[in-house]
């Protein structure tokens, strides 16, 4: 029980902080922090099972997040019929060609011995394949992008409820992870880090520039929601009644009827956005809890024991007949799939897909700070890391501003140093993250909630 006290205390403090934001800033801000904390927690769980369970460094989190986001678009947006009829055939043909190339390469790999000639053949297949695909796809892509470019200019999606994309996003990310894992998992730890970082940049480059598929930097906005729209809520009878009931004491103080109506309207508007955010919180919380249960169960299962054995002594595990390569691949795929879920959740919450916003600092390195700070190898720690770091990331600007005002209190408001520092308050978050990470790595290298494995 004593051991769990840490966990309970840490989470209570975290919740307390969010409630403080709710009461002093606004519930709207508190809930949006909370929701992103939950999404971050999902990402850290994904990174944590790779790093904490298996010691694999995945610096490609950004790429898997973006693929999850892409899934949200491809699932929820209605198909653009015109675009399909304009260039759909070319795209489908190209897709078959890609499959053909992959099969041809596989055939060559299986059929012939390793040799220079085989490498040349493969190179010829791939290069000629790419050239043919370009010729086939180019007219299609041009036609698709010409269809109503201001609004669509892409193929659209399947028009299904966006919530399905959470699962599809997992498959997208898992699929990419399978390919990367096949290729790169044999590399040394720091090479793997660099390779995954660069591969994730390739993924982003494709998403950014293949407009026919993703609309690229033109962004996809107005995605469907799993939660009600604020505007609709504000006109729904039961919701207005609910808000009235909730705030009856406050409203009863106002005697003037028209004033009371104005106040109620304002409350309904505020309440509607809080309500929507609460809906998301509920959905996200369900995902986090399901994942937590699954990962905890996995951690304490024989499989989890084997993974830790592999992590702690790869050679010994190998010698005992454990297929290290296969297990590493499995865990790489699973972890990345979880990150894919988070990516889809993120786009679902935002209601828009902006490929330009995927940057390694925010979506790879920040997540790693979360994992290290929280406690690698411990799921509760990883989730806590997501909460703490995201909270600080958002709240460091106000904290920074406060600190600047405090330290420069002696200076006049127009003093150039004070003005300069106040302008640079947004960058204090980098400073905080960096110093936080360095301090944790130095003085608490296992994180706030270290890995604890009881031997039963």
């Amino acid at each position, binding site marked *: 029980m004593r051991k769990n006290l840490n966990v309970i205390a840490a989470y209570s403090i975290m919740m307390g902080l969010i409630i403080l934001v709710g009461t002093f800033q606004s519930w709207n801000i508190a809930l949006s922090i909370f929701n992103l904390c939950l999404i971050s927690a999902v990402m850290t769980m994904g990174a944590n099972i790779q790093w904490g369970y298996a010691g694999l460094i995945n610096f490609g989190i950004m790429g898997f997040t973006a693929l999850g986001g892409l899934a949200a678009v491809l699932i929820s947006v209605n198909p653009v019929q015109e675009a399909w009829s304009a260039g759909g055939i070319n795209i489908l043909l190209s897709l078959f060609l890609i499959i053909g190339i992959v099969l041809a390469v596989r055939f060559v790999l299986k059929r012939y011995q390793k040799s220079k000639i085989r490498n040349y053949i493969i190179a010829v297949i791939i290069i000629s394949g790419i050239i043919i695909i370009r010729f086939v796809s*180019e007219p299609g892509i041009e036609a698709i992008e010409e269809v109503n470019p201001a609004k669509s200019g892409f193929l659209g999606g399947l028009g299904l409820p966006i919530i399905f994309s959470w699962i599809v996003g997992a498959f997208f990310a898992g699929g990419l992870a399978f390919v990367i894992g096949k290729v790169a998992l044999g590399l040394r730890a720091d090479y793997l*880090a660099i390779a995954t970082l660069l591969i994730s940049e390739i993924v982003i480059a494709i998403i950014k520039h293949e407009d026919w598929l993703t609309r690229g930097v033109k962004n996809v906005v107005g995605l469907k929601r799993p939660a009600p729209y604020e505007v609709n809520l504000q006109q729904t009878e039961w919701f207005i009644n609910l808000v009235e009931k909730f705030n009856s004491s406050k409203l009863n103080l106002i005697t003037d009827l028209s004033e009371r109506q104005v106040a109620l309207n304002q409350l309904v508007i505020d309440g509607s956005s809080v309500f929507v955010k609460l809906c998301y919180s509920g959905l996200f919380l369900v995902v986090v809890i399901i994942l937590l249960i699954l990962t905890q169960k996995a951690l304490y299962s024989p499989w989890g024991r084997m993974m830790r054995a592999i992590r702690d002594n790869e050679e010994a595990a190998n010698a005992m007949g454990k297929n290290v390569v296969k297990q590493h691949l499995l865990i790489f795929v699973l972890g990345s799939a979880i990150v894919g879920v988070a990516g889809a959740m993120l786009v679902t919450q935002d209601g828009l897909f902006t490929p330009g916003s995927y940057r390694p600092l925010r979506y790879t390195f920040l997540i790693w700070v979360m994992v290290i700070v929280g406690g690698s190898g411990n799921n509760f720690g990883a989730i806590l890391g997501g909460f703490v770091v995201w909270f600080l990331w958002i709240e460091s600007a106000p904290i920074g501003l406060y600190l600047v005002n405090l330290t420069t209190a002696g200076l006049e408001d127009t003093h150039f140093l004070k003005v300069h520092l106040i302008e640079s308050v947004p960058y204090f978050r980098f400073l905080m993250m960096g110093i936080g990470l360095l301090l944790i790595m130095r003085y608490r290298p296992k994180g706030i909630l270290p890995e604890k494995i009881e031997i039963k």
Partner: protein
Amino acid sequence: MDFLNALILLLNYIFVPALAYGSQLAIGAIFVTLIYGILRFANFATGDMMSFGTMIAILFTWHFQSIGLTLGFLPTALLAIPFAILIMGSYMLIIDKFVFKYYRLNKSPPVQLAMVSIGVMFVTQAVVRIIIGPSDRRFFDGEKFLIKASEFKDITGLNEGLAIKSTQVITIVVTIILVSILFWFLNKTKTGKSMRAYSDNEDLALLSGIDPKKIVIITWMIAAILATIGGVLYGLDKSFKPFTYFNNMLPIFAAAIVGGIGNPFGAFLGGYVIAFSEILLTYAYKKFFMYVLPESMEPDGLIQLLSTDYKFAVSFSILVIVLLYRPSGIFKGKIL
């Protein structure tokens, strides 16, 4: 005549820019490879360290400009470089003392040091943005072109112009000087050889009486020289923006690994491999073919293998291929 035009076209749009860009990458890649070879970790703060050095150089440049000190047709920034190197070196030694040293003495695994370098990356990024801000800055002054395209056309009477920016020439010349001195130092001096020995076999180096503290300090000083000069050259040629510098870390890593990490000469060549393949694969050859082919065979499309949007992706794909087939790099890594 057409053949000459085609040649000038390639020189102007491929060879000269790739040579300059490659030099900038090469310097960064040698920086990465030195840190990797001697201090034994992948330094994820590479781009930001370069941006720190460049920022200091810019601040000095502004100061010199404000007191009316310039280098005539050369950019004032060249004058600022030595001062920037000193401050950059002190910054690196301070970071080493407070951050990296602890892990080095504890013989922490390279992965842990790489994670720590991410902390340094965040801090350095914050420092740069707090001091100079995140915006795009140009600090080039002096003569912009060595040869202008129009002048070239007038002189030679060709249709195609060859424009050579002075920053490109400066980049290439400085790189040649810097890299020659560095290789001379590593291969011919006792200290340089002891650095290679330390990188090759740390235990035996200690047994031979080589002082690790001295090696570490010299490594950081060389790193400061490389980071500052590399950063300033890039900034002069293009512009200075902290975010771009952070991103430049990626092709620089690619160059270092392609060249064989830990091998400075490999890193040097790796820079050019990356730069040339990026530009060769994303250049639209339409005009080139218009010159060399008869009119009847002129192409319709742009004849571009990949759109310029995929410039970075090219270098990363090369890296992935190299990692697959020759993880030790084209020029065999781990020999300093």
